[in-house]
């Protein structure tokens, strides 16, 4: 503990290898991604974008109550998710659709949560992905506890958890990072700084030089990365995970990115930001940039791109179908899911409801 403060501070400039025009910096370290990996990253960004777009339209059609779009953040989300090992765990927020997609959580199940089928529509143990957390940053503490538990059992996995630059203002963020540093827990706090918390611009969220500068105050490693550069994001996340797995404790990664859509479908972002700002960021978007890079390396051509997009669209059609047909579980679950064993009180309330619905005698 009490590590050298200079080492814990982030770099002065964000770590970035891929410029917006798709050129890879000559200083890029060896990253160890095969051509297939690279194309796979592209594919998952396209899938994320396509499914996210589907979700927005499903919401407009009244199929979802609300949707929090991750458009523009695919580089950060797919990049970091690709750095995970199968045994690693994920504790996501409500906008981390690219992450859960890469981890294999079926997208219809994510959508069902926004349709209101049930609050958590996938089993966290299936894909090692906790239920998305809506109360901001509360899940960070779960991640710290989970990671510490793994460490205590001598397991070699790590945990990654997500919040926004807004979420770093919550007390739970502070407690989670502090506990993690004290326990030297193998956990990575991945902060997508998408410049806004609903309407609040980052500059009013905190006055820190960067969010990555918060690390040193806990004895955690701070990393500042260009979150729209999927290669840099992958690289930095891998480094932080390796660090965690070697017993060196937690890191805070600040991934600079931009929320291209309103906060949710219920939001009106024209009240607080300009079209020009959004367009300027679109130019720096993660998919376009990576596409250019892949093309420059001859890893992508029109045909492959078309196929990838087509497959994503087909996937979206299936997802759409499943979502539209999704219905709520039987009302009994409302009562039976509360405790691990039924209580008299809840059984009586269940009978009351079923009776009211005409399904049982009083």
């Amino acid at each position, binding site marked *: 503990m009490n590590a050298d403060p200079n080492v814990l501070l982030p770099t002065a400039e964000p770590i970035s290898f891929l410029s917006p025009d798709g050129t890879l910096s000559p200083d890029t370290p060896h990253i160890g991604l095969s051509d297939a990996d690279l194309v796979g990253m592209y594919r998952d960004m396209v899938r994320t974008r396509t499914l996210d777009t589907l979700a927005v339209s499903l919401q407009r059609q009244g199929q979802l109550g609300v949707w929090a779009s991750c458009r523009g953040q695919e580089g950060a989300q797919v990049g970091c998710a690709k750095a995970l090992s199968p045994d690693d765990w994920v504790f996501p927020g409500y906008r981390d659709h690219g992450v859960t997609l890469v981890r294999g959580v079926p997208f219809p199940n994510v959508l069902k949560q926004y349709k*209101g089928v049930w609050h958590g529509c996938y089993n966290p143990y299936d894909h090692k992905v906790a239920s998305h957390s809506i109360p901001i940053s509360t899940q960070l503490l779960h991640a710290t506890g989970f990671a510490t538990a793994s460490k205590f059992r001598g397991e070699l996995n790590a945990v990654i958890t997500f919040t926004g630059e807004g979420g770093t203002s919550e007390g739970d963020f502070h407690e989670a990072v502090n506990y993690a540093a004290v326990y030297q827990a193998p956990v990575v706090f991945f902060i997508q700084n998408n410049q806004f918390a609903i309407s609040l611009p980052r500059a009013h969220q905190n006055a820190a030089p960067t969010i990555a500068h918060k690390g040193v105050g806990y004895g955690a490693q701070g990393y500042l990365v260009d979150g729209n550069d999927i290669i840099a994001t992958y690289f930095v996340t891998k480094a932080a995970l390796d660090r965690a797995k070697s017993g060196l404790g937690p890191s805070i990664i600040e991934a600079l990115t931009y929320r291209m859509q309103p906060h949710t479908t219920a939001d009106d972002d024209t009240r607080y930001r300009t079209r020009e700002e959004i367009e300027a960021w679109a130019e720096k978007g993660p998919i376009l940039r990576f596409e250019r890079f892949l093309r420059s390396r001859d890893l992508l051509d029109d045909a492959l791109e078309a196929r990838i997009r087509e497959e994503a669209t087909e996937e979206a059609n299936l997802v759409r179908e499943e979502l539209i047909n999704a219905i709520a579980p039987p009302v009994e679950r409302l009562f039976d899911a509360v405790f691990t064993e039924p209580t008299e009180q809840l059984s009586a309330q269940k009978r009351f409801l079923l009776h009211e619905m005409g399904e049982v005698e009083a």
Partner: protein
Amino acid sequence: MSFTLAEGLNQALHDAMSADERVIVFGEDVGQLGGVFRITAGLQAEFGNRRCFDTPLAESGIVGTAVGFAMNGFRPVVEIQFDGFMFPAFDQIVSHVAKYHSRTDGAVRVPIVIRIPYGGGIGAVEHHSESPETYFVHTAGLRVVTPGTPEDAYGLLRAAIESDDPVIFLEPKRRYYEKSDGDLPTSSAEFTKAAYRTRGETATIATYGPTVRTCLEAARVAKEEGWSLEVVDLRTLSPLDIGTVVESVERTGRLVVVHEASGTLGMGAEVAALVQERAFYSLEAPVQRVAGFDIPYPAALLEEHHLPSIDRILDAVERTLEY
């Protein structure tokens, strides 16, 4: 003329800020955006960003700094974005907002209003449909108020802001767009009295907030069955005007309490306990409670089963009649 409950609230904030420059408004997204429900719309433009401003994303911070502002002469009206996000601020509310005045034997006043959109019925995701009134009503040192009509939205919010005590102001969010046909009120409403919303003899219905309208609809339906229900809107949950309920029950002999919050230790428990104590011989039947089940608030597709419905209310009335 007509106005919505949301407009009543917005106008009340506006008028309170005009009337007293110590009144300031802050919370998440209340400034330029005007709040996610637009209850604070236009305030920053009119009064500037030192009278209406955005806070960082931290609810304990919102309420904790409000205590400091209040100690230093301001009258903060803060917004908690949704019911489910009140809990991070709960320590500041219980440990300081509720206690500072009595801790200092009256030397320190904390005229803070904490506005919280609450309740379900809007098809929301988890944590956006909670009914936290019990937590506040049980906590000594807080006033707890909730309007059931657009008029009261204006009048009670003005009264809350004028009060030198801390007030938890619960806004029935699914009724934000409910309309009243009258003119917007211009002054504060009486603060500590329940109100009869309909008169009747068959039974008394005590309710508040979002279910006032549901109960009025039930009363209309009941009329067709030949029952006349007396709907009492509690308005102030703490301190509770139990006298009005007792007075009604003394006439009707029957009482149903209706709310969305879970039944166990919901407001219905207190109302039932008080009424059986004060109107023991008037009660022809046990007080019935129509409340949310003792389950976490359900997902959108299932919430209708949880919320008090007209049928469920009328069934309860019937139970009191058949007892």
